[in-house]
């Protein structure tokens, strides 16, 4: 029978990309209110994703730089016996966790103050009659995580009490950066939890919106779909415009989110950097590319998922 060979010959199909794009853009315009709703919810959810990923990247960088700077400063009392200071110094240098120890004299401490904090008005320093700053030993560590253990060791050292500038409250003779690091970590983990909750909520809302727009699109085209089924359009040919429409909406949302984040980075970040110059608030180009990829990818996934659910429920092929 000749018809058998005809069926086999039909399986080769040229895909008309232009047709799919035209169909999805047209449908987007037909239901623009719903589509806009979908785009806005995706925009908001991706904006939060981007903002939380970006800010956690920045905070991570800040934490690292603070950690690098983690050193223990031991303030020495005026007139501490050089032999005692030397003994403490030797004990510290002998500790395997310690990278190096640096002695800062009272005069050096004053010079440093003049150069950094009081750089704008060095005359204040010159007006001082006596030098109020203590000399110190700066202990740099190999690993910042050891900071608490080393602090305990120093406190336990009897030589420390002999030279400390406040032997009655030895805590205050020690200064180290762990507190800042801990606070930063607490802050970032809280940020992550809040961000995750928002992202999940908005992702669900976006899915519902996309699901609805695709349902409307299917309803608007039900006659055409019926005829397509009738004349033997393949299932993927019928589905593709709707999938593409969902992806189109999310890509638009992702693009708007990127635009917003980009302008924040462009206009706001430099100002932030100015106001807190002691912390390295910046985002590398690599990190920006990473965030863009994350946003675009999650946009495509949300779009495909939303329209796929709608197609399963409303389009019987």
């Amino acid at each position, binding site marked *: 029978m000749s018809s058998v060979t005809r069926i086999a010959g039909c399986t080769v199909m040229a895909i008309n990309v232009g047709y799919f794009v035209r169909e999805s853009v047209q449908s987007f315009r037909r239901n623009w209110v719903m589509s806009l709703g979908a785009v806005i919810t995706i925009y908001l959810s991706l904006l939060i994703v981007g903002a939380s990923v970006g800010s956690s990247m920045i905070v991570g960088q800040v934490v690292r730089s603070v950690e690098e700077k983690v050193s223990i400063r031991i303030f020495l009392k005026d007139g501490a016996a050089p032999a005692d200071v030397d003994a403490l110094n030797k004990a510290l240098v002998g500790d395997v966790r310690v990278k190096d120890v640096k002695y800062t004299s009272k005069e050096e401490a004053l010079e440093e103050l003049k150069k950094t904090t009081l750089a704008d008005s060095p005359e204040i320093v010159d007006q001082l009659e006596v030098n109020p700053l203590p000399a110190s030993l700066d202990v740099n560590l190999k690993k910042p995580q050891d900071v608490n253990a080393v602090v305990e060791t120093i406190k336990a050292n009897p030589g420390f009490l002999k030279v400390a500038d406040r032997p009655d409250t030895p805590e205050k003779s020690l200064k180290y950066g762990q507190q800042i690091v801990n606070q930063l970590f607490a802050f970032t983990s809280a940020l992550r939890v809040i961000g995750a909750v928002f992202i999940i909520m908005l992702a669900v809302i976006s899915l519902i919106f996309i699901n609805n727009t695709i349902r409307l699109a299917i309803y608007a085209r039900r006659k055409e779909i019926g005829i397509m089924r009738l*004349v033997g359009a393949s299932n993927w040919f019928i589905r593709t415009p709707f999938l593409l429409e969902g992806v189109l909406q999310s890509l638009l949302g992702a693009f708007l989110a990127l635009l917003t984040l980009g302008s924040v980075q462009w206009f706001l970040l430099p100002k932030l950097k100015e106001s807190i110059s002691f912390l390295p608030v910046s985002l590398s180009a690599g990190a920006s590319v990473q965030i863009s990829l994350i946003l675009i990818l999650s946009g495509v996934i949300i779009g495909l998922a939303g329209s796929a659910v709608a197609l399963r429920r409303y389009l019987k092929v």
Partner: protein
Amino acid sequence: MISMRNVSKTYGADKPALYDVNVEIEQGEFVFLVGHSGSGKSTFIRLLQRELLPSEGSIVVAGQDLTRMKNWKVPFLRRNIGCVFQDFKLLPNKTTYENVAFALEVIGRSKHVIRTQVPEVLRLVGLEEKINSYPDELSGGEQQRVSIARAFVNRPPLLLADEPTGNLDPATSLGIMSLFSRINKTGTTVLVATHDREMVDSMRKRVIALENGRVIRDQDRGVYGYGD
């Protein structure tokens, strides 16, 4: 072309819409399927399109066993079956030409194929003057011709028609039937489900009569033959 063996179709728990139907239709035949409303004609047609699967029995169309056919293959089966309906099923925002071309577009035919086959089939159905008209500018008979052109443009070996003249006056119906007859002469198998008595009696083709889901008569050069 069509082979139905012991085919039954039951919707839910009701009495069967079709019961133990055995029908063989050869390639190139012209067959009328007659019966009252609810006799099972539409179920018969929808089974052949594989809109429905039989509850029992086997159906072979164009060498393909429909009961064992994978879902993704169904579109390729339908490219070999042209379908015409009582309500024409035309797209109101497309012209005659576009409506027919649409059937070729969505199965991925090239622009070249579309540009040659669409005018050809419109000439066959006698609508070459109306290629730029929209469906609401056409008469019922003309609209049905467009839908026949769309069903036939891909040159399917089988053409199914479910009450094609149900909305048309007798004179127009005659024109549509003679069109089916011409299509049949090109070698296409034609199956027309109808309750248009005069048409069936005047054409003198093979008639399969259904009543309450059973085949009660199958005769060559038959007549409508119900007493009402």
